[in-house]
């Protein structure tokens, strides 16, 4: 009849399991995949990320040297990060914060000189 009671009593004498979120923020795990960002200086605009992305949220313009990502379409799978030939794409461990208006990450870099234009393999 009172089979749940021991569990409830045990909970009384244990430390509360609640994470008091806004007061104490928990450190994210080192492996966690969060916000995506690009080190635009290193980016060669090779479009590998745009091609590999399963939700097609990245748009790259090689001529104009722009990198765009729609964070509201991104599914935080990390495929682009793994495939980036320059390793300039990174994911923070923290999640992206909620917002009240839609936004698009737009980055403009410098157009690279001939030597590595459009060739992802070249380093």
């Amino acid at each position, binding site marked *: 009849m009172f089979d*749940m009671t021991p569990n409830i009593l045990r909970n009384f004498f244990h430390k509360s399991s609640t994470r008091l979120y806004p007061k104490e923020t928990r450190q994210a*795990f080192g*492996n966690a995949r969060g916000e995506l960002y690009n080190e635009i200086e290193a980016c060669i605009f090779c479009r590998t990320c745009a091609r590999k992305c*399963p939700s097609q949220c990245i748009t790259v313009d090689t001529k104009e040297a722009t990198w765009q990502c729609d964070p509201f379409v991104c599914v935080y799978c990390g495929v682009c990060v793994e495939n980036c030939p320059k390793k300039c794409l990174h994911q923070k461990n923290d999640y992206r914060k909620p917002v009240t208006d839609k936004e698009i990450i737009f980055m403009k870099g410098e157009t690279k000189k001939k030597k590595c234009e459009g060739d992802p393999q070249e380093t």
Partner: protein
Amino acid sequence: MARTIIPFGPQHQVFPEPIHLKLVLEDEIVKEVVPALGYVHRGLEMLADVRDFHQMIQICERVCGICSTIHAQCYCQGIEELMGIEIPDRARFLRVIWAEIHRVQSHLLWLGLFADAFGFESLFMQCWKIREKIMDINEATGGNRVNPSINIIGGVKRDMNPDMAQWVLTQLDLVEKEVNHLEKVLLNDYTVKKRTVGKGVLTREKAMELGAVGPTLRGSGVEQDIRQIGYAAYGELAHRPVVGIDGDAYSRNRVRFLETLQAIALVREAVSKLPAGDISVKVKGKPEGEVVTRVEQPRGELMYYIKGNGGKNLDRLRIRTPTFANIPPLLSMLPGIELADVPVIVLSIDPCISCTER
């Protein structure tokens, strides 16, 4: 006797997901049930046309948020079979580890929701409290709480170093201890028994005829579990299906509870036998031909039919999910029971509507 039709859903407190059941009642007794689906239908099988077969992994993973790893595993397994890829031993064991961690998570979630369906709020809270530890494991090892995205064609994406494996095991020890405390409640408690014993009976013959799968089938006494085929590394691990006898809601509850403990034991065994070596092989070529591949999801047998044409897009991807197979048995369980028991019976098959409709 006057017949009443009661619409059940699509937005209902008991279900986290929208499903609509048209219940035809006489007095308080259900006479007939007509399900209406389509509230979660996305049509993701068709996405194989616009995404290449590597990108489909992430899409398959999002067929269902509760068994995401296992969906991706099944898909990768199918493509590997088509392309004739042998994945490394270590990857096979790692797949088992993640799949079983996922099973623990899913069963705890279900045990909680089931308790909630008959109003046992404190048990619901307790189960979900335990489950958070598994979510932490997922986040620490895979990178995301729900969709760890660790399966790739040719193996797995992330390795588990010994420290991490040890940490996972200690966390699972804690989980097991807490789950054991719940044994008495889930299997013996007066309230639980009162609401589940003898409700929604599915006999062995009926279960076979209607094509029930997973715990619903095993709860009726059929010893069938796709893990017996020995896909991934299950062939090298000690495993016997948990079987119930009565085929009622209580028996399904018992099967799932015992499977939770079994899954923890399987993780432990897989970690102890984890071989060294690579975690993935390089994939070349494109899938061609057709294949049917099956794995055991927390809810039962999951079947993928994949047809490739040698190009980067698949010709056809067909997903048969366990809840889809469990709906006809559900329709046969419902007539003859009281309206108040409908949520309990519906939840006893562990419905996952997003799986069903894809």
